[in-house]
């Protein structure tokens, strides 16, 4: 203000003072509003995280009281009878993940390489759209292709449905990881006389492998908990079965069936299954994190 007075030569007029005051007030108001909005953002972050905390706490509390050794070694008991376990569902889930990976990984990685090398925008777009399609649609699709013609539900159909879901996920992560490989590396290999296919497979793919493994594990973690595609394909099985041609039990299916059942014993079992399922997802996710770290570690 003092400088303003000297430049203008003389005391500020009433009008000037009013303008200055108004500006001050408006600045104060804008600051207050800014603080309020930032406060609201903090609140949003807290509210967004809250459900996760509630779910995890409840899961641990319920799971701790219902998990025991029998859960991992026995199969289910008749309704209303306490005890029993889900050994068949745990093994079933692992088998389904394995089938899905056998289908989804090679196709996904191959398609990812194609996208990274040929810059095919349409295919990438379709992969993204495929990724967003509801899993229940994948379920009825797999049913009409793999269950209806042979007239029986099977582990194979369930695994294939999950594998189809994996394809677009793995495709996109593979593409992104391959694109991160510096072009100079590819050029160096070509200059040394490597053929294109060997450059792609033993230089580019090899360099991007850590990231691709991470992407594959993330996709596996995601399909591990999928239920909707299994409802009409793997169906679930209350007995021990590892046959690919027969219906197979899976943790998510078991959780669903037990949760909507009227029996308290089954509700307890559902919570135990939920803990185990989250455990499986968590282990796969942690493995993905380790793979990522190793990749970045090697880069430094």
């Amino acid at each position: 203000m003092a400088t303003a007075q000297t430049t203008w030569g003389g005391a500020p007029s009433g009008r000037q003072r009013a303008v200055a005051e108004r500006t001050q007030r408006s600045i104060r108001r804008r600051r207050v509003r800014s603080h309020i909005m930032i406060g609201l953002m903090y609140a949003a972050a807290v509210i967004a995280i809250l459900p996760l905390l509630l779910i995890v706490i409840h899961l641990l509390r319920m799971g701790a009281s219902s998990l025991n050794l029998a859960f991992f070694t026995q199969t289910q008991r008749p309704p209303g009878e306490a005890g029993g376990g889900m050994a068949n569902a745990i093994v079933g889930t692992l088998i389904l993940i394995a089938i899905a990976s056998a289908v989804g990984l090679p196709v996904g990685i191959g398609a990812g390489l194609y996208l990274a090398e040929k810059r095919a925008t349409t295919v990438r777009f379709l992969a993204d759209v495929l990724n967003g399609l509801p899993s229940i649609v994948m379920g009825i699709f797999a049913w009409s292709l793999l269950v209806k013609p042979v007239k029986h539900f099977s582990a194979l159909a369930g695994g294939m449905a999950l594998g189809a879901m994996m394809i677009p996920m793995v495709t996109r992560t593979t593409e992104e990881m391959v694109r991160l490989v510096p072009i100079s590396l590819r050029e160096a290999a070509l200059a040394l006389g490597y053929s294109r296919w060997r450059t792609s497979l033993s230089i580019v793919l090899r360099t991007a492998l850590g990231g691709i493994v991470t992407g594959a594990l993330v996709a596996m973690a995601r399909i591990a908990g999928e239920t909707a595609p299994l409802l009409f394909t793997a169906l679930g099985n209350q007995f021990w079965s590892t046959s690919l041609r027969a219906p197979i039990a899976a943790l998510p299916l078991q959780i669903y069936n037990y949760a909507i059942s009227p029996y308290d014993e089954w509700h307890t079992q559902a919570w135990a299954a939920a803990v185990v399922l989250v455990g499986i997802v968590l282990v796969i996710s942690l493995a993905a994190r380790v793979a990522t770290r190793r990749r970045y570690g090697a880069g430094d």
Partner: protein
Amino acid sequence: MTEIVARDAAQAAAATGVPTRPSRSWTEIGSEIGDRIYSWSITGFAAFVPILLLLIFLAVGLAAWPALRTFGFSFLTSSDWDPVAGHFGAAPAIYGTIVSSLLALLIATPLALGVAVFLSEFAPPWLRQPVAFGVDMLAAVPSVIYGLWGIFVLIPFLREFLMPFLRDTLHLGVLPLFNGPAYGSSMLAAGLILAIMCLPYISAVTREVLLAVPRSQREAAVGLGATRWEVIRDAVIPYARSGIIGGIILGLGRALGETMAVTMLIGNRHEISASLFAPGYTMASLIANEFSEATGDLHLSALMAVGFVLLLVTFLVNAIARWLVWQTAKER
């Protein structure tokens, strides 16, 4: 003489493991064949993606055809779903899908945008990592576990506390939306669980586009004397707008097709009710619930037709969302 030298050289090479230089033309032919095989095989793998999409449309569409032909347009508008009489109208399921998804977006969008802006602009470094991890984990929790939690925690909470509170304490009961008996399983329960489930998707895309906004955009606003909030509101968000909208629509796509949690919470009743407290149905939960017990071919076909409508809608929604996000990312 030269022959002997050449033979010696070849022997030496074989002994030391250094390869002799093969005829150039063979290498070329070999790598050309290899290149061609490689190119064909990755093209083949990539072809799976469009073929899969096409097969899905064909398989579901063909299976849906009998029902669509029988009922025509009334399939979408009739709310008469009677497997015994053989009448099928999917209006309640379509209505439920739209209402539950919009409710979810209404709740999730402000929160997701708040979290995304918080993470990309305001969060102190020590807080950023755990909050981002937590939001990512929300997306990693399997749908069926949300459903389980919903049945045993959310629904009792709604029935005992939130619904009476909204209806009686806040006197919102005068509105048809919050009227009626407080069933636990309801449109509201489905909307809330969907909000939790699509929040991480919206926030992840929003964060991504916010990060794509150039620094200069923020610096210019700060230089003009903007407060921290004004920088966001006037400089960052307008720049990222179409990407953010894309993220919201992507969240919508997730909400429309979400199956398990909704099936467990929405109450599964073929009825259009104005109240959010009443049970309803969504297209996905209708399929999940009735498919394995479908009686007769027409029932099955009607369920397939519901699936086909769901497929069409989510395909369009996803295509629009991807296009919008892609538009923003392209400007980078």
